[in-house]
């Protein structure tokens, strides 16, 4: 069987930053599967890094296997496309796995993680998102954000209680309304984007996008158009230069 080379290029970088003692972020990707992932863990002694790494390895592992048959037996899945259901099933499994690990081991109680997943197939990218990590799209020299944070601050903005400008100063800025692994079930935001040749998708933890002005991100993307490795490297470098107050991670995916 002839295998066609992937029509996308992934790269990434993850760094502890300059303040935190350890790295609770995790990144993963597999070009042949078309899957790229980022997670930012939280909670307790080593819980954060366990949660983020366990979530990613579970998503990867589940994704490699055929979709469990019970998914298609359920009535509600009949209108859902294969790629969407496959990604959703993997994220759902990761939630279950992290949740049970947290329940079973007292030292991991309360751990959880954000999760970003992007799955490239045909001419589409399927996105899954939980928490305050963000996916951006760089297309035709424009940077747009594809995800909406699951944070108390975002809720306050939606409700008109505070403005977007006030948000960075809110005491709730790191309080999530949703995370993977803290409840037996988790709601997953999913969407599909029709990709164009040259698109660059950017997966960022808050330690990355918080430390970079919009213009700085755009400048790095502009200066390194095609080079996913350089983009990831320079985003992390710049976020460190600007202070590196949190763990910094970026995964960069380019559609060829």
């Amino acid at each position, binding site marked *: 069987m002839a295998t066609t080379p992937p029509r996308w290029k*992934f790269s*990434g*970088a*993850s*760094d*502890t930053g*300059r*303040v*935190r003692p*350890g790295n609770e972020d995790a990144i*993963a*990707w*597999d*070009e*042949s599967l078309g899957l790229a992932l980022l997670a930012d863990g*939280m909670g307790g002694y*080593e819980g954060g*890094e*366990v949660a983020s*790494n366990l979530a990613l*390895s579970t998503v*990867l*592992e589940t994704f490699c296997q055929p979709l469990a048959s019970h998914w298609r037996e359920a009535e*509600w*899945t009949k*209108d859902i496309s294969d790629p*969407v259901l496959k990604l*959703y099933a993997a994220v*759902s*499994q990761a939630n*279950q*796995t992290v949740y*049970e*690990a947290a329940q079973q*081991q007292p030292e991991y109680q309360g751990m959880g993680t*954000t999760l970003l997943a992007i799955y490239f197939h045909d001419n589409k990218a399927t996105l899954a998102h939980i928490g305050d990590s963000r996916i951006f799209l760089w297309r035709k020299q424009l940077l747009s954000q594809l995800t909406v944070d699951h944070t*108390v601050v975002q809720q306050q903005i939606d409700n008109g209680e505070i403005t977007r400008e006030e948000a960075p100063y809110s005491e*709730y*800025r*790191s*309080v*999530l309304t949703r995370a993977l692994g803290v409840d*037996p*079930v*988790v*709601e*997953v*935001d*999913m*969407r599909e984007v029709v990709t164009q040749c040259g698109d660059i998708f950017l997966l960022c933890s808050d*330690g990355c996008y918080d430390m970079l002005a919009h213009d700085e991100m755009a400048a790095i993307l502009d200066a390194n158009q095609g080079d996913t*490795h350089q983009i990831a490297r*320079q985003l*992390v*470098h710049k976020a460190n*230069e600007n*202070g*590196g*107050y*949190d763990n910094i991670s970026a995964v960069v995916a380019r559609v060829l």
Partner: protein
Amino acid sequence: MSKLVLHGSHGTDREIALDQERISIGRKAKNDIHLDDSAVSGEHAVIITLGSDSFLEDLHSTNGTYVNQNTVHKCVLQDGDEIKIAHYKFTFISEPAAQSAPGKTISATPKSQIEPRTEHPTMAIAMNASTLMPELTELAAASDMPGEMLLSTSSAAASEIAPGDGTLGVIRILSGPGSGQVLALSKPITTLGKPGMQVVAITLRDGLYYLGVVEGEELPQVNGAEIKSLPYPLQQRDVITIAGIRLEFTLK
């Protein structure tokens, strides 16, 4: 935020917050701390603050910069250090990073908002849905952070690697100061690298070893090339380059 206290000649102290990454000191007016005295060089010294650490660097000034009465070129400032430039005296007061981003927490409210939808969840355009799934995969132990360069969490003596059980991976250092050293990958996670530069983690799962990243702007290279997947499943005789040092992976 850390600060400098400039001790004035009449017992008047002035506080200067180190609120920028770079604070320059010198005779020229453009300096952040402007000392108008002929014994001070135009661009005399600079203080770089990163997180909770501040570094003082003398910019080859004519009359030098003193910390606790010693000439310095570059040094890390400690709480209470006395800095002297010409006849100006400063005290450095360290106030560690209050600006560190607060740790993430989960809001207490949403648990009740999210209703389990195992029966007939609707996946509309937003495609929000939830379900329950059984099973638990094995949980790997968390890694320790390495304290020194190219040290792993495993302290197993180099040559005492038990042969035989078929799944024991081994790392051999091919270049650099630890060249020739051998490391058994017997723990669920072994971290390797140079903190501050590049750190990777090798995870053992179901008899297979995976290479992942912990720290660093650069990705580790395997056999001289960029990796296509991460965590990368290590193969027999793979050569990994971490922080400029080459390591060979073998499976016993």
